[in-house]
């Protein structure tokens, strides 16, 4: 074979590189798409449910008017105690009224000064939450927080603290799939546009 036949023109090289890129994009799109399908569907469904958690009753909505200025609020210790007294027996894990406040039972206390309430969430399976008046210590509502487990499922934390990497993998896969999808759509058009603008070189 002669040397001239062996030598590829720059245009043919560009075309070859584009075809290789297109092929690589196709396989990345296909493999990552199939690999991350179930994880992405789960993340999407849990995300939609979390967006509508109030409407779906996953999160209690307790309308309340502030009864006293924030300066008159009870101490966090007393509010936590009042919440634990009102908690269901299963959530207390052996704790009873009269015992010292066991902070190990409490996951978090979410203070809402504008509404005059504090939301005390326990560390039980149901993520029981008591809404307590900041000024009087009256328990306004006791219920479970269904969205906590959904959030953990959404992030992958439900499978263990380190499993948030699952949603990371799914997120990266989604980004790469979107980019390669765009590339697969646009690359043939770009090639055609280049050929049309330079018909002589296209031969």
């Amino acid at each position, binding site marked *: 074979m002669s040397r001239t036949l062996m030598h590829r023109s720059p245009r043919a090289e560009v075309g070859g590189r584009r075809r290789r890129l297109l092929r690589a994009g196709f396989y990345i799109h*296909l*493999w990552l798409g*199939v*690999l991350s*399908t*179930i*994880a992405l*569907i*789960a993340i999407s*469904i*849990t995300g939609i449910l979390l967006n509508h958690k109030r409407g779906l009753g996953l999160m209690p909505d307790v309308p309340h008017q502030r009864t006293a200025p924030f300066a008159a609020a009870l101490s966090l210790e007393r509010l936590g105690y009042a919440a634990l007294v009102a908690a269901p027996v299963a959530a207390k894990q052996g704790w009873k009224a009269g015992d010292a406040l066991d902070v190990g039972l409490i996951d978090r206390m979410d203070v809402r000064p504008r509404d005059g309430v504090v939301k005390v969430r326990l560390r*039980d*399976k*149901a993520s029981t939450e008591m809404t307590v008046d900041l000024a009087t210590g009256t328990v306004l509502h006791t219920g*479970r927080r*269904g969205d906590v*487990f*959904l959030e953990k*499922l959404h992030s992958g934390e*439900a*499978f*263990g603290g380190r*499993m948030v990497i*699952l949603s990371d*993998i799914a997120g990266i896969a989604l980004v790469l799939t979107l980019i390669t999808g765009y590339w697969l759509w646009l690359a043939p058009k770009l090639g055609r546009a280049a050929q049309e603008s330079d018909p002589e070189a296209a031969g």
Partner: protein
Amino acid sequence: MSAGLLAFLVGLFGMPLVLLGYGRRLRRRPPAVRAAFWGAVAGHCLAGVLAMVFGMIPPEAWTPEERIRGFAGLWSLLVLPVLGGLGGAVLHRRFLRRSILSRVGA
């Protein structure tokens, strides 16, 4: 890492990888292999739906004696594609044998 979690991860990421590899040049493969492939794909799709439905059962509803939730949520993504693949291959052989017998006239 528990066995259930390992099975879940293998089912979630390993099984689609295996199926993708297996599905390459599928038309050139023998019909029994193709039937096994489609059986495994059907098993994986079914397992995905089951895992999602059972995975959303809130934790306070879980009981220690319950086995179905654990199976559907963690093990099904691995077990159902394998069963689907085996089922596909077996069903294909049965159909093949029946069609051969009908052709022979037995």
